[in-house]
């Protein structure tokens, strides 16, 4: 405290003027606590309150919950240490959910990025009505995922769906679709590729923006030097897209791990447990008043996401460093 006091008197503010020692002293007290420009705190205060109230407090609260066995009905709370976490990995429903999430991610991320790149290349041309095409390509991004889930469950209903009626017309045997665990998971991948906030179109929009930043002269210079279109793509365009590619890889992975709304809207985790993904598992735990389990599962998922993000950052940094060294 005393050291702070010793440091506190700094250069007097020019406007304080002589003959006004009292206000100056009071201001310096506030300044001692809130720094040089105390009013700045007033401006950031609303944001700080919101972030602390809606992000930090729940974060700490759920960490507490995850080490408790809380029964809100019988009104008992017991500290159980890491037991919730241990139980989680003994629960086949949770390990199953982790598996489903990983399988989903393994298909969804590469497919959405490749599809997005393809679509972006198609849209990066100077043809008639290109503005219209680009607008239309963006439409799927704004479709609500829950509604889309419901829509898919109607189309791919094994007994009444349009999809089976079409298959029947071309002579293919009816498929179980959402009645079969594997097909249901595949349909979820298809649904999220088709529309929603992380669909192919979303990736295409990001790639398109990056493509338009690739200097045209580079491509022209390459073709003058005799490069074919494929060569231009591999050696000029793609390297220029690399930072965006890394971003999308990370973003799509995070989105895939957080899959929830389409599952909620279509399969509700079924048939059986075959489309229960981790976030749906968390939702179900909280719904069934197993607050401790839900909180523990949330922390496991958050930990996973943190690892992935850190690993990506590390790889990116190392690449940058090696390039610098070279």
């Amino acid at each position, binding site marked *: 405290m005393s050291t702070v006091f010793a440091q506190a008197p700094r250069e007097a503010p020019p406007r304080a003027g002589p003959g006004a020692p009292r206000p100056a002293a009071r201001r310096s007290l506030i300044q001692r606590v809130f720094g040089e420009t105390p009013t700045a705190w007033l401006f950031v205060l609303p944001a700080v309150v919101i972030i602390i109230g809606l992000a930090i407090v729940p974060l700490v609260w759920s960490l507490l919950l995850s080490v408790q066995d809380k029964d809100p009905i019988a009104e008992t709370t017991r500290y159980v240490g890491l037991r919730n976490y241990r139980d989680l990995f003994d629960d086949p429903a949770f390990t199953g959910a982790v598996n489903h999430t990983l399988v989903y991610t393994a298909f969804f991320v590469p497919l959405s990025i490749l599809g997005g790149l393809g679509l972006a290349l198609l849209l990066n041309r100077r043809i008639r009505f290109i503005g219209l095409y680009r607008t239309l390509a963006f439409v799927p991004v704004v479709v609500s995922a829950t509604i889309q889930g419901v829509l898919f469950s109607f189309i791919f*209903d094994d007994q009444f769906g349009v999809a089976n009626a079409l298959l029947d017309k071309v002579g293919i045997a009816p498929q179980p679709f959402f009645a079969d665990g594997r097909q249901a998971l595949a349909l979820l991948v298809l649904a999220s590729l088709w529309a929603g906030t992380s669909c192919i179109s979303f990736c295409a929009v990001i790639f398109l923006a990056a493509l338009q930043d690739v200097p045209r002269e580079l491509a022209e210079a390459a073709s003058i030097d005799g490069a074919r279109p494929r060569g231009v793509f591999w050696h000029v365009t793609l390297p220029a897209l690399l930072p965006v590619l890394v971003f999308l890889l990370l973003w799509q992975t995070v989105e895939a791990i957080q899959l929830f709304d389409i599952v909620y809207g279509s399969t509700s985790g*079924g048939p059986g447990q075959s489309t229960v993904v981790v976030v749906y598992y968390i939702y179900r735990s909280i719904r069934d008043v197993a607050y401790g389990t839900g909180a523990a599962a949330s922390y496991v998922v958050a930990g996973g996401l943190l690892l992935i993000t850190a690993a990506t950052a590390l790889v990116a940094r190392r690449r940058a460093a090696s390039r610098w060294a070279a």
Partner: protein
Amino acid sequence: MTTKKALAALAAVAAITGGLAACGGGGGKTGSTASGTDADSGKRVTITVWHGQNQSAEKVFNRLVDRFNATHPNIHVDSQVGSLADSMLQKVTAALAGGKYPDMAYIFGPNVPNLARSPKALDLTDAVKQPGWNWNDFFPAARTAVTVDGRVRAVPAVIDSMAVVYNKRLFQQAGIPAPKAGWTWDDYVATAKKLTNAGKGVFGTGWPATGDEDTVWRIWPMVWGAGGDVLAPGGTSVGYAGQSGLRALSTAQQLGRDKSVYLDKTTGSEQMYRVFNNGRMGMVPTGPWELPDIVDAKVDYGVVPMPTYGGKAVTISGPDTWMLFDNGDARAKAATTFAQWLSQPAQDAVWDIDAGSLPLRRSSADQAVWKRHAAQVDGVQDFVDALGDARVRPSIQNYPKLSEAFGQAITGVLLGQKSPQDGLKQAVDGGNKALQDQ
């Protein structure tokens, strides 16, 4: 802890009766500590009820509340939806945890044992012994459903029984005689197969395949009919291991194999009833609450008791209840008064008709208004008759977990992904685990 609770109760009282703040904070305190004598005479007590209903049931409930408020000057009932009945357990749990909860709420029967663990849930064992209740007039299934460990923890709100509703026109088209009481599950499977017409999109019957309680309660009459039970004697293990469970699941498997069953994968089984109401399903096992919609859809229908495995007829009854919560003695007393009034024959008969319930008590069935209803709507009397053969699920806290395991098994078997043997093993293991966790 107790002071904290008292404070929470006080806060709740203060918040809800906010308008009466003129009485002063002390007023609320005396209200909650007064031991229910005439101390509260002359002072109006407001209680909150979460009824969880919509459409016609909500309207009739609010009419009854208005009538109660008009005739009981000392009590004011504030009728609120709370949350639709399907999600009332979550809503009430959150409310209890938050310390601001209703005085009375509509709770599904299987959830009563769970909520009864709350120190705030009233024990009505002594209350219902009072002469005004005429407790033994309630049907046994209704009384059993609200009794947990020998204590009365809720008041019956709705009672149903399951029977098969069939589409007469589809039976005629398929050239099959109408089903009759005493038919067997083999008859049922064979009839469903004959009714099915894939080309026209007609199914013999339907079964929710979500794996939740809506899937499971339909199998209990089969298990009971085959000599099994939910719990084995003693209650520490499941009662459907072995032949009874296997027989029930084999019937389900056959329906799935014949493709004669429409499997509804959407929560709430509305899709299944829509198929029936569109005249594309021959038979559907259901409760009396579905009749109003079936009548509206102008389906020419009949009602027949559940099939058997050759033995005595048996069906399931799934009662819903009113649970009462402690917000201080004055309010608890008022809530009890309201619940008692609501279950009197004159009110009960009116409520039952619009809520799609059967009479909760014998004397309600004798009310003129009920008799007129039963005479007007085809099949209502069949459901009342089925109540005589009805059994209920046991009032145990871990039933939902047991049900979850069985539900997964039934869905797997219906979809042809599991054999009845494998399904049964899963259902038995899961059920036993649920019971041991208790």
